[in-house]
């Protein structure tokens, strides 16, 4: 059966009365935005909503799929009828056909979130387009029905929003609740098994903005949903609430954290001869001394990146211990530090420490990386040449203590002159 071919020839597909899918299938795509695998392609979903006093188009498609999109659109609306164009998200996979659509329907008013303004400029270079910035609660009147906007920033760009069609209970959710899964049967109760794709997409696109997902869920959960119409993958008309609940589940911590109200500090280290380990242990002891902080110690050599990433996502403070070998921190440390794009670590407390033979670059290099990852690094790291002396171990203990004080908001205030800052 050639399912893909079968649908490609057809026109628009009705979701509910006077709401049609006019998107495009891209079964050949194998990776999306470079970082995401797409084993069976994706879809670019676009929708048309007809009201008694106007027609709205919600999102468009990737530019190379414009022809299909316009053909489907023409099967349900004339360009002259289009009063409203909504872009829930301006990434090129959804805004690709926008300039041409506006040429064909110049009377239509464009609605994007206010954070979309600069992106629109970046996309259209030179071309000036008038648009109406939206806010949560703002409505567009289509006569007998209304569209209402919900600002849901960072699902998956700063500009993302959702659009709610109240009378039909349809949420046009943009990238949220989507997945890269291409199946011309289109509806979640008809397509193949896309559960993996749904979770995988969440893990890569939504998880880095977990706290924003929770904010968005506060807006979405109260809605009496009948259909979630995302910008990629199956349209969720069978038990849409289940997918909202899944986002809630995926955005929560797995097991309850036993540390409860206590702050947590995780110390990761690697050690060739036990020196960096000894430093890690002193640091842990110092942090424990300060009380109020739950410390965990992990030897990076004994674990794998992915569960460590889970740990890091949940921790309040992170210290990384690496020996300096050939003028660099060791590879497993870099592997871990380069795997954190999928989690939100902004503003966590960071520190570095480690032993060295003759140069000791690892500590400042790791500190720089931590700053690059948007961690706070207020306490200077500790380095020890070869086997740490009792004084150096005492410095580690002090580092641990200071980290604990920072984590619990008990740090001593200091005053310095800018000239004294390196």
């Amino acid at each position: 059966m050639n399912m893909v071919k079968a649908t490609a020839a057809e026109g628009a597909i009705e979701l509910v009365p006077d709401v049609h899918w006019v998107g495009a299938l891209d079964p050949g795509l194998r990776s999306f935005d470079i970082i995401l695998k797409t084993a069976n392609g994706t879809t670019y979903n676009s929708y048309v909503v007809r009201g008694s006093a106007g027609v709205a188009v919600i999102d468009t498609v990737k530019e190379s799929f414009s022809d299909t999109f316009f053909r489907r659109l023409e099967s349900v609306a004339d360009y002259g009828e289009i009063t409203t164009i909504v872009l829930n998200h301006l990434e090129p996979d959804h805004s690709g056909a926008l300039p041409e659509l506006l040429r064909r329907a110049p009377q239509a008013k464009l609605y994007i979130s206010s954070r979309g303004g600069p992106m629109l400029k970046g996309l259209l270079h030179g071309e000036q387009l008038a648009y109406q910035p939206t806010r949560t609660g703002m409505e567009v009147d289509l006569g007998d029905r209304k569209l209402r906007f919900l600002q849901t920033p960072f699902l998956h760009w700063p500009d993302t929003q959702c659009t709610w069609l109240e009378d039909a209970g349809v949420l046009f959710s943009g990238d949220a609740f989507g997945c890269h899964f291409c199946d011309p049967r289109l509806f979640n109760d008809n397509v193949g098994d896309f559960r993996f794709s749904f979770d995988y997409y969440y893990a890569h696109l939504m998880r880095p903005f977990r706290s924003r997902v929770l904010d968005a869920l506060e807006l979405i959960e109260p809605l009496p949903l009948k259909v979630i119409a995302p910008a990629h993958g199956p349209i969720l008309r069978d038990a849409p609430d289940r997918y909202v609940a899944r986002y809630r589940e995926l955005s929560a911590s797995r097991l309850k954290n036993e540390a409860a109200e206590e702050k947590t500090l995780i110390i990761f280290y690697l050690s060739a001869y036990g020196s960096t380990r000894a430093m890690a242990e002193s640091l842990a002891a110092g942090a424990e001394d300060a009380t109020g902080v739950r410390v965990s110690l992990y030897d990076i050599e004994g674990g794998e990146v992915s569960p460590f990433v889970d740990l890091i996502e949940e921790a309040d403070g992170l210290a990384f211990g690496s020996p300096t070998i050939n003028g660099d921190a060791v590879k497993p440390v870099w592997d871990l530090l380069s795997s954190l794009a999928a989690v939100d670590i902004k503003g966590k407390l960071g520190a570095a420490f480690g032993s060295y033979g003759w140069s000791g670059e690892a500590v400042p290099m790791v500190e720089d990386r931590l700053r690059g990852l948007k961690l706070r690094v207020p306490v200077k790291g500790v380095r020890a040449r070869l086997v740490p002396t009792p004084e150096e171990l005492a410095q580690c203990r002090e580092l641990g203590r200071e980290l604990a004080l920072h984590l619990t908001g008990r740090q001593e205030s200091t005053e310095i002159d800018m000239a004294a800052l390196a």
Partner: protein
Amino acid sequence: MPKAKVTFEDVGVTVTVPAGTRLIEVSEKVGAGITYGCREGECCTCLTKVVSGHEHLASPSVLEDQVLKDNFAPRHHRLACQAQVLGGEVVVKPA
């Protein structure tokens, strides 16, 4: 040279700076939690709450003002990559 004092409340550090210093020039060096993206006043990543001493910062440029508006920044919030300390005492923390 006229001096000013900036306190980064989240790390408890006060720095004496020459008038005209931008917050970005100091905040990372003291390990404060203010984070940066574009560093050019466009992305709003560095949004910072001015806890006190708002009047001691140079007023925002037209561009900064627009970015603050586009991002629904509350009152007394500034972009740390843009805001310049002119004198007196200013207390800031990540938004």
